[in-house]
């Protein structure tokens, strides 16, 4: 699921007053919970003009699960006790391989050593290698190849073992 897809879900939730939304597909699971339902009934009634004209959803109170896509404040990714996240150390573009022709650094199911390069973040034309912070198995690759990612955004899930 791409950032823009999640964003449009969030807009939908906001417009139609959905409080909780859970989607599970082959790419993973997304669970979005709005802390309160500020715009549900009131400002954005049915028949509201399109988003471009519509009121900007402002925060009521900083909800723990505020509707942000990606990033450290994203929809929470549920981790088992023996799982850790590989997070983006910077803003940039996520690549799974060193070049378009190369093989991805890792696939889901692969085992990795601590310090092994698992992906690249391109920022300012520089390719920054992201290393596994611990040995383990790649159980899920969250980011899409070529996707814009922000600081702290979850890229992969590693499982110890």
């Amino acid at each position, binding site marked *: 699921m791409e950032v823009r897809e999640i964003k449009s879900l969030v807009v939908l939730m906001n417009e139609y007053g959905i409080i909780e939304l859970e989607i599970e597909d082959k790419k993973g699971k997304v669970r979005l919970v709005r802390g309160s339902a*500020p*715009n549900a*009934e*009131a*400002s*954005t*009634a*049915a*028949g*509201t*003009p399109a988003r471009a*004209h*519509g*009121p*900007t959803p*402002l925060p*009521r109170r900083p909800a723990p699960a505020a509707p942000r896509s990606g990033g450290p404040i994203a929809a929470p990714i549920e981790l088992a006790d023996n799982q850790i996240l590989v997070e983006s150390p910077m803003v940039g573009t996520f690549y799974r391989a060193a070049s378009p022709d190369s093989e991805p650094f890792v696939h889901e199911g692969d085992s990795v050593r601590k310090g092994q390069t698992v992906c690249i973040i391109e920022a300012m034309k520089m390719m920054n290698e992201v290393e596994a912070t611990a040995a383990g198995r790649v159980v899920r690759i969250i980011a899409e190849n070529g996707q814009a990612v922000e600081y702290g955004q979850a890229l992969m899930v590693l499982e110890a073992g």
Partner: protein
Amino acid sequence: MFKKLLVANRGTIAIRIIRACRELGIPTVAVFSTADKDALHVRMADESVCIGPPAAEDSYLNIPSILSAALTYGADAVHPGYGFLSENGDFAEACQRSGLQFVGPRARHIRLMGDKPRARRIMKRAGVPVLPGSEGKGVSEVRDALADGKRLGFPVLIKAAAGGGGKGMRIARDAGELERLFPIARGESEAAFSSRTMYLEKYLERARHVEFQILADNHRSVIHLGERDCSIQRRHQKVIEESPCPVLTARLREKMGKAAVRAAEVVGYSNVGTVEFLLAPDGQFYFIEMNTRIQVEHGVTEMVTSTDLVKESIRMAMGEELGIRQRAVTFKGAAIEFRIYAEDPERHLPSPGVVSNHHPPGGLGVRVETALYDGYRVPVHYDPLIAKLIVHSDTRDLAMARARAALREYLIDGIKTNIPLHLKILHDPDFIRGDFATDFLRRYEPSSARPSDADALAAEKAS
């Protein structure tokens, strides 16, 4: 300077008056009904008095209660705001008799302008163009109405001589309709104003509502502060007002402004007032009535003329002289007001409730007049106008851009508002071009609930 001023109103206009008094250094007394005990104007005033139960007749329209409050609490002036007792000649007179300065015109001017056929006669004599219509004191019988209708040619508008707020108003497109609708309109007038007297006016197609702001002191100086185009109306409610009117030429503005000043001068009017005209597509304009009070939409004139009309109304009531001559009045940029109603924007039903997430817009050229606050319960008993957003910029296009940005920022939860409707209008090509008349909003009526001609056209008479 007044010792203490009682604000005989509630909501946004009460806040507006209290702010003006604070700037002038005049202590204020707020009055409120038991339904308004938590209202913002009660908290903002220096003192406040409960004057009765929720029903307006027993509180905000209760003259003895309000006068007693003013006298008991030591006020020497009363500002009526708009609505409620603001155009009640008896109230103005009772204030003066009790030694209270009424902030507004003299009682006889309120009464004179409240008698619509009489106002028409006076204006006609003074050379102010009026719409062709019933002559003399009006008509009460269908027979006389039919004679007038034939003389004028259809369509005609049936109006109540003591009218206001669109009550007793119907459009008749032929003699048959006139015969059918006249008794209905007269019945409404009897119920609302205890008056069977009606009058007919020629109905103008595709006309705009263009009104001029008047400012007059007690020393016979009268100026106008330009016009407001209030054509964007829904039934009895103005919805959007702007200044300048997008189609007015400088020459026509001068001509209409002079007519408006003449209308006030001929009767010796004082304080603030508004002369309303219909502007036909051919550039002809016609006096329809004069409102003898501050208007809801006074803010747009304040923005383009840099004048504080509420402070001026208080200064005039204290007998001060107008400090400005007509030729010194200058106009800067364009201002647009958006009335925010607590209503379902689709179904146009009032939407009372408890306000949450109140986040008004701010910044350059953005003015909000509201009595809302987070946690406030909008009562069911009164007008659903809860806020006014006024934007000002160099041009009408820039003001519209500013309005779109501001309305997108505006958050009011807990109740439904017409903010989405305003955003739709701001993306309507005809509105953007300035090409509209008083029937503009009919296109945004829900198709299932499109009102009858008679209803929609009553919009022509919004106060």
